[in-house]
Structure formats: C-alpha cells, structure tokens
C-alpha cells in the first residue's frame, strides 16, 4: 500500500512538476519548502548582520562617526526585527519542514499547499521591512520592541513594520498549525508520542506556543496602528490607556517568543549529543516534561522585562520568582545533556562542537538571565549592555549555534555530500572566539552602566567597546566562511556515505537513503 498520492490521481510523482523557478514558486514538497526557508533565513541573517556591523562600527569609538543617531536607531531596530523574525524563526521552521516528516515517517506536511504559502509570505514581509529604510522618515526606530509613545510618533516606516509583522504572524501561524497537525496526525504506525525524537517534541511544543502568542502580537500591533491613525487611546494616558499596557501585551508575546527561538534548539542539541556520544539521550521523558514545563511557565513571566516600567511590588515579586523557576527545568536539560555525554564514546565533529559550545555558552546566558530576574539587580542593569550580553548568549550562542550544528548534522542527508570537516572546525572555533570577544565584555559595559540603543557613550567605556567591535567584525567575517562551506558542500562536497554518523538512530538516518529522495516515506515505516 502506498501512503502518498501525488498530483491528484496517483500516477507516480516527480513526473510533471514544473522546473526552473516555477518549481520553487509552486512547490508543495516539504523538502523544497524547507530549503527555501533555510536560504531565506540565511539571506536575512546576512542582511541583519550587515546592520549589526554598522552598529558596531559606530560604537567602535566614542562620538558620532558613521551613523547619525536617527539612522543608528533604525539600524538597531531593524537588526533586531530581521534577526528574530527573518533569520532565527524561519530557520527553525525550515528545519521542521525538512526534518519533521522524515523523522516521523510521514510522506509530507499535513497541509502541503498552505505550507508553500507560509513560506512565500516571508519575502513579502521581508521586503516591507527592507523597503522601509528608503521611505520618507526612514525605518522604524523605536527598537525591536517598538514601545509607544515612540512607535506612535514614527512615520511610514512604522506602518510598514506593523504590516510586516502582521504578515509574518500569519506565516508563523499557518506554519505552526501545519507542524502541529503533521506531528499529531501523521506519525508512522507505532511511533507513539513518547517515542518521538526530541526535535519533534520540542517543535510540537514550540508550535503550541506560537499559536498561543502570535495572535496576541497581531492584536497589539493592531492597537498600535489604530492609536496611530484612528484616534484610539490604548497606549495614551490622556484617554485612560497606558503605554505600559503595550509592554504587558507585547511581552506576553515576547517572552514565549524567546522560548520559541530556543526550544527547537534544545531539540537539535538533544539529537546531536546522543549521536556523537553514541549513547541514548539521558532522561528522555524528563526532557519532554522539562520542555513542556518551560513552555507553560514561559507564559507567566513576561513582566520581568518591565521591572523598571512601574508595577506593584506584588507583581514584581511574582514575576521574579516565576522567572527564576524557569531555570529549574532548564537546568534539568543541561544536566541530561551532560549525563548523556558522561562515559560516552565521544567524537567531536563540527555538529558536536557546536552543540557543546551551545551548552557551555547557553548556560552562561541562562545565568545572566537569572541575575536579570532579580528585581533589585535588574533595576541596575535594565536597558544596559548587560541585557544585550544576556540575550546574545542565549540567542547567538544558543539558537544560532544550534542552527549551525543542525546544518552540519543534516547537510549530508539533504545534499548527499559531506561538508569540509576542517573548514567546519575553523568555523566553530572562530565563531566561538569572536562571539565571546564581542559579547563577554558587554557584561562589564552593562554593569558599569552603559545604556543600550545609544550611538555614543562616555569615554570610560571606550576600551571594551573597541574589543567588542573587533570581535563583531571577526564574527561577521567568520559567517561568510559558513556560506562558503555550505555552497562548496552542495557543489563539490565529497560524496557522503549512507550513514555518516554511526550513532544516529532517528528514522531519516536508519530508514532513508542518502541523499534523501524527493519523496520519502510514501509507505510509512512500522516502528516497533
């Protein structure tokens, strides 16, 4: 019994699908769509990265050299938005597209045509954001969190950003409904929930978070829009509203959002560590429960971003303790990864290096998070470079490193070719070095009181800023190496063996040839 019927009436497949550009425009194949997501994300990563280089160039020394303050603010705003919504999130969705059907033995995503739409909304939103630099008044400049009143006062750029966010939200919602449905409905017979690979589990939970909070973001940007143009008073105290209300609604979305960007990363690392330690994942079920508790808790901690915005003390206490509680399931995960490696027969190929780098640096970010969660300390560090350091440790050396690990891990499966292990190792070590050079010193800057989102600074911050900028340029250049590695892997990589990672146990490695065929699991495998 064949389990997939393609092109209407089941006369085979890969026969009459369009070629050339139309293949990519019209495709309903999860692998094509996954690739488009990944390339889109890489493109946005370089655009967002260019903005970051601009920011660090301006901050290389005190005074205003390159970017006027207005433009500087546009750079920081769009850097954040592009990296979060354009680079990190689509990359994970791309991975889900490629991997989820293969890891659960499904022929494709549940809604293959809608899947195409989820992707093709992204370039539309991306163009809204990028074009906004060139309209009168320039791009949005109120920070990626676009707090009113600044965002109520901005010009056309803010409106373009609002509609970009609406479209991105629609894309994410369709994407996550697709992922949830695929996972719940299309697993191979015998693949019970508690046998699913961790990557699939983390994506299932992430997709739940997405359907819960993306609509809230859509709601809050809509209120912003009507406050801007239709005279409503949601964020206007004169009308009985409150700018702080915006912050509450935004962070009700925003904090789960940061977990949306890290849970799939947890999943990736939970696949890679067992493979290269050649041991099953330690504490599988505790991993599942930890992921679920992180997701649930993450909906009740949002106001830790607002400790200095004005809040009753009871509120501060509640959000402080709730936030600190998240560190517990997070620590369970770190413990389990470490225990998986304990006495394993480990090898250190590039995916493993990035995963270990992830654990090491993510833990630093987790600790600085707990420090930020302590109200009296946060009152000092709020809106300083300390917070910047914190979230780059969790997002760059967390989410991004895990994405690199995933790319190296699955490139052989996707392309049939191996990447260059030597260059991959260089990529890791250079990234590791320059990342820390860029961001570790920002902890000191923040503790010493350097505010974020300001193009100029007092003289005593000059040395650390210079180090940070040099690190940033190095980090940026290193990522060009990644692009080179990927392209040369696709173009001229050595042919990959059927199973390059002998410790891998998930379906895409055990049940499918390398490279994975265009249509996989037309007949579902039976899982014992």
């Amino acid at each position, binding site marked *: 019994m064949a389990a997939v019927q393609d092109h209407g009436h089941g006369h085979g497949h890969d026969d009459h699908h369009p070629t050339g550009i139309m293949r990519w425009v019209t495709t309903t194949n999860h692998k094509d769509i996954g690739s488009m997501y990944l390339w889109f994300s890489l493109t946005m990563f370089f655009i967002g990265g260019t903005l970051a280089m601009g920011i660090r160039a301006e901050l290389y020394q005190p005074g205003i050299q390159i970017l006027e303050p207005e433009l500087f603010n546009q750079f920081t705003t769009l850097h954040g938005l592009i990296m979060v919504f354009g680079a990190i999130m689509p990359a994970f969705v791309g991975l889900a597209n490629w991997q989820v059907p293969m890891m659960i033995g499904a022929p494709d995503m549940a809604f293959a045509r809608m899947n195409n739409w989820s992707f093709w909304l992204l370039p539309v939103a991306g163009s809204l954001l990028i074009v906004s630099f060139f309209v009168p008044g320039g791009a949005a400049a109120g920070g990626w969190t676009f707090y009113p009143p600044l965002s109520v006062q901005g010009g056309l750029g803010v409106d373009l950003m609002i509609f970009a966010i609406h479209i991105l939200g629609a894309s994410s919602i369709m994407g996550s409904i697709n992922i949830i449905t695929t996972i719940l409905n299309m697993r191979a017979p015998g693949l019970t929930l508690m046998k699913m690979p961790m990557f699939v589990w983390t994506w299932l939970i992430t997709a739940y978070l997405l359907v819960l909070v993306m609509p809230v973001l859509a709601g809050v940007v809509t209120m912003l829009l009507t406050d801007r143009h239709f005279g409503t008073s949601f964020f206007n105290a004169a*009308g009985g509203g409150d700018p702080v209300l915006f912050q509450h609604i935004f962070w009700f979305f925003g904090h789960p959002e940061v977990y949306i960007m890290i849970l799939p990363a947890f999943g990736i690392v939970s696949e890679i560590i067992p493979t290269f330690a050649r041991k099953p994942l330690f504490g599988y079920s505790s991993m599942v429960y930890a992921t679920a508790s992180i997701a649930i808790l993450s909906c009740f901690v949002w106001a830790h971003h607002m400790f200095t915005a004005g809040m009753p003390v009871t509120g501060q206490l509640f959000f402080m303790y709730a936030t600190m509680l998240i560190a517990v399931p997070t620590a369970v995960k770190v413990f389990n990864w470490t225990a998986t490696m304990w006495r394993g027969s480990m090898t250190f190929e590039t995916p493993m290096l990035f995963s270990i780098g992830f654990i090491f640096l993510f833990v630093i970010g987790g600790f600085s998070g707990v420090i930020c969660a302590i109200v009296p300390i946060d009152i000092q560090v709020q809106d300083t470079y300390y917070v910047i350091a914190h979230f780059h440790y969790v997002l760059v050396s967390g989410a991004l490193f895990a994405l690199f690990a995933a790319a190296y891990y699955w490139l052989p499966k996707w392309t049939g070719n191996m990447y260059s292990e030597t260059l991959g190792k260089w990529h890791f070590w250079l990234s590791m070095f320059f990342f820390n050079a860029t961001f570790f010193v920002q902890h000191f800057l923040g503790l010493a009181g350097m505010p974020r989102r300001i193009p100029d600074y007092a003289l005593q911050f000059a040395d650390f800023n210079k180090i940070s900028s040099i690190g940033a340029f190095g980090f940026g250049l290193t990522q060009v190496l990644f692009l080179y590695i990927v392209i040369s892997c696709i173009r001229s990589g050595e042919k990959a063996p059927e199973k390059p990672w002998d410790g891998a146990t998930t379906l895409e490695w055990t049940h499918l040839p390398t490279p994975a065929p265009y249509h996989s699991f037309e007949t579902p495998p039976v899982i014992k």
Partner: protein
Amino acid sequence: MSQESSHYYVPAPSLWPIVGSSALFFLGFGAALTMNKMELGYGMLAVGFAILIYMMFGWFGEVAKESEAGEYNGSVDTSFRWGMGWFILTEVMFFCAFFGALFYMRVFSIPWLADAEHDLLWPAFNAATSAWPTAGPGIADDFVEMGAWGLPAINTALLLTSGVTLTIAHHALRAGDRAKTITWMIATVALGVIFLACQIYEYGHAYEDLNLKMTSGAYGSTFFMLTGFHGFHVCVGAIMLTVITFRLKAGHFTADKHFGFEGVAWYWHFVDVVWLGLFVFVYLM
C-alpha cells in the same frame, strides 16, 4: 479497500499561494501608504483586494473540487479537524489581547490615573469622575454610553438563535435531508445578516446621537475595536455559511462526510461565544 483513497493526499504544485502572497504584497504596501495619505496606496489596496478575492475563489474552489473527487481520506479529514481547531484557538487569543486591554484599563490604568499620586497631572480626574465608562482624563468630548438592553440584547438573541438554526441544519444534513438543511442554512445566514445590519445601525446611532466615537478614549477604543473585530468575524462567518449553502445546493457533502460544513459551524459557534463575552464585558459591565 473501500472507495476511500488509501493515500494521504498531497496536492500538486500550485500557483494559488504565490497569488495570495502577491495580494498581501499589495495590501501591505497599500495599507501603509493609504494610512499616510499617499495617493499610490489606494490603488495598491484595490489591486490587493482584487487579487485576494480571486485567490480565495480559486484556492477554495480547488479544495472543494478535490474534496468532491474523493481525494481526502479519513486521515486528511482528521488533519482538517486539527487545523481548524487550532486556527480557532488563534482567533480566541487574538480577542484575548483586546479583552486584556479592556481589563487592564478598567482595573489598573484608569484607577491609577485617578489616584492621589496623579493629582498634579489631572486634578479633576478622581474616583468620582473616572467611573466607567470614561474617555480618560485628557479627552473632554462628552459621550453617552451604549446601553445593553436595547439593540445589543436583540443582537444576542439573534446570534444565539442562529446557533440553534445552524445546529438544526447540521442534524438535517446528517439525516440526509438536503432540502431541510438548505432552508435552515438560509435562516442562519439571514440571522447573521440581520445582526450585522443592527450592528451598523448601532454604530450610526453611537456616532450621531451618543457622540460615542473611536476617539472617545478608553471606552470608545475598546468598544469599537472589540465590537468591530467581532462584526468583521460575523461577516466572514456569514460569507462562509453562504458558500456552504451554495455547495449544499450543488450537491456537495454527504450525510457522514461534510467537514467543510462542520468547520464553518465551529467557526460560527466561536463567533457566538465571543459575542457573549462582548455582551457581558463590553455592554453589561
């Protein structure tokens, strides 16, 4: 095997998504430009809407055709159920944002603005003058609140009744009585349309007689945004019900396979429930 396809249907490559994306391209730029009073915007908006409507006809038409051709087996049906369920959850969360804003203003921001600490800012805004409904301390334009027991109560009755008629239609469909199904569907759509007409009348009344506007501070903002988005959803729901009615006339759906019908019914009930929330929290309280 039975008539039903044993395969999970994966649609062929399709142009509809990119058509939809180009619609949103025009809508996104068009809306942003329009709101900044730039000429180009209006045209782009119009083009965007035209493409969007074209896409909906084409895409949903294709889905209906595939469904009638028997391409969707039980597993695909389950997918649609999950998909629609989660979609409705996202809609619920969207409304939650606005209900949350209403809650926050009434419970926190307005009492705070009226308390002793803020005496210097707006001395005239105190516990007495800040009673709900209010336009806030800085908006002087007086308005009259929208009462609950006139039109809104009638509207509640209309929507609740439409839920009942829809259920009768569903039972008739399951019993295989197509004519009866269609009759009750028409009744449901009619109730929805009457509801919308009442709502439009109410808005006119608010603007003309009560001086209640979007710009009427906290009360006006939450009143119009909540009822407005709800009305928009009723509108979408009524259009979907109409489409389903036409499909019933065209002989679509069978007594035991009609998720297209059920999905829209779920949506309609969801819109109903949101209204109950509105009636209590916006009109009554």
